């Protein structure tokens, strides 16, 4: 059992001290982490090195330093790994001259999958009605789904997805997330890179944040936030007596600031549990009504914002 949050139990993908540079530019710097069954969200701003890391995992790029093992093999040297691994790339990497059905059937042949599998996967992503139209006429969301169908056709144990929800509408997004969750529940390893934080939050069991090519944080969202001791928590408190409560809160240990807002207070504290314990007592003493207590920054977005700002 590992205690390092960047390492997964039952790892199927192991990345050890991997760096990748292109000339003078370092895209990934000394990253060590692993991925296991379930969905791991790979987060980072544009240019952080997410796509490079995914390409290293899939063997499209060779590490400048370090090693990568997928199911115990080096993907650059053992093509057999691709029996169990697939990639959904970020780019519009589809053959626009083919119909959706032909494209997925082609993927099935290349993946040594049975002939009927293409129809199953097309149905799974909800493209039955459009399957006989050329991909050239597909919307961005449809192209994303046909790429996912083509990747799933080989029933990969390890699925690497680079921004798979780009261009999809809310219904399509929900459908794809359900598909990914279903695979994760069956024990498949899914690595999903995204900058749409809310969606990663919805589907990922675990998050790795990459900033400037380095692993900035790992674990579940609350754990990552808790590990950031140097950044105070921000809490929204809704109350009918903002000014009096603000003055009372400022007297508490750990409270750094209490700003009065239209709908209540925005409090910064180093001791969130302490604030949670003290607030009801203080409210009783001041005869204040507290209608909201919401840690503002336990969302992935704020954690992510902190990580990026900290660099």
């Amino acid at each position, binding site marked *: 059992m590992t205690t390092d949050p960047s390492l997964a139990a039952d790892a199927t993908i192991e990345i050890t001290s991997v760096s990748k540079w292109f000339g003078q530019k370092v895209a990934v710097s000394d990253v060590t982490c692993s991925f296991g069954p379930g969905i791991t969200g790979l987060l980072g701003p544009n240019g952080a090195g997410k796509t490079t890391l995914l*390409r290293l995992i*899939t*063997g*499209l*790029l*060779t590490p400048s330093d370090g090693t990568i093992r997928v199911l115990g093999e080096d993907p*650059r*040297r053992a*093509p*057999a*790994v*691709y*029996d169990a*691994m*697939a*990639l959904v*790339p970020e*780019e*519009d*990497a*589809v*053959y626009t*001259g*083919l119909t959706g059905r032909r494209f997925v059937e*082609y*993927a099935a*042949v*290349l*993946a*040594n999958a049975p002939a009927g599998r293409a129809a199953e996967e097309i149905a799974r992503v909800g493209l039955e009605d459009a399957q006989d139209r050329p991909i050239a006429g597909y919307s961005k969301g449809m192209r994303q789904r046909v790429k996912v169908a*083509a990747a799933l056709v080989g029933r990969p144990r390890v699925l690497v997805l680079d921004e798979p929800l780009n261009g999809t509408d809310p219904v399509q997004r929900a459908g794809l997330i359900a598909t990914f969750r279903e695979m994760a529940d069956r024990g498949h390893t899914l690595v999903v890179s995204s900058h749409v934080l809310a969606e990663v939050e919805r589907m990922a069991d675990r998050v790795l944040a990459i900033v400037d090519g380095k692993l900035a944080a790992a674990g579940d969202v609350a754990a990552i936030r808790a590990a950031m001791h140097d950044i105070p928590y921000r809490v929204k408190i809704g109350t009918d007596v903002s000014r009096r409560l603000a003055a009372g809160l400022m007297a508490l240990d750990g409270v750094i600031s209490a700003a009065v807002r239209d709908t209540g207070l925005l409090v910064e504290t180093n001791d969130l549990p302490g604030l949670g314990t003290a607030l009801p007592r203080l409210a009783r003493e001041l005869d204040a009504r507290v209608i909201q207590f919401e840690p503002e920054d336990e969302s992935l977005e704020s954690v992510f914002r902190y990580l990026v700002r900290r660099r």
Partner: protein
Amino acid sequence: MRAFFAMTRVSIGQLLGRRWVILVGLVGLLPSIVMLAMSRTQGAGRLAASFQEGPLMTLFTIVLPLTSALLGSVALGEERREGTLPFLVLRPRRREIVVAAKLLAAWLSAWLIAGASGVLAAIVLGLSAGIWQMVLPVIVATGVSTLAYAAVFLLLGYATRWAVLIGAGFLFFWELGIASAADSLANVSLFRIGLTAFAAMVHGSPGVIRDVLASLTPGVWGAIAKVLVLSGCSVGALSYVMRHRDLT
């Protein structure tokens, strides 16, 4: 093998489905037009030699290199530049299979266009002078040279987006310039490999073919062996590069 043929089939569809292939096809009519013009002005007895001096040389120095260079360089090069390469290479099979399927697709597509261009000119000759024995040599010779060009340009097209420009330089400065001037360099001319096969199959080749071949000895099997070795080297080199270098 199922995957190999699927890759070849889809690639041929992609290559021949491009709009500019129509333009290449129109350029392919050039040898027939030249042959047609000759047949109007020359007597039947002279046409066999004229076919080799005019339409055949147009085919081998313009149509065939252009067609093969274009199709060879986009076959794998555009997959790389358009981002579809991972679809082919992240598969449980050796890189050699992918490269060989692409080479086969580029070759068959180029042969179809260049071969049809030559056969059409040979048919015009047949209809004008009743000489039909050029058809088979043209098919074999175009097959040999298109494979040579496709093998070289598959590799070049993967490495650089300027492959066709480099190819034009190679054709005009090297093949038609330096290699024509220096007899000993005729060996490293791709269209001449096909012409050696042609010359071996057609008795009494005119002076222009002999001049172009210079020190090369006509021979069908020798030409086929040469292009097979060239193709093997191309597949081997490209597979090595794809295994050891970044694939994006």
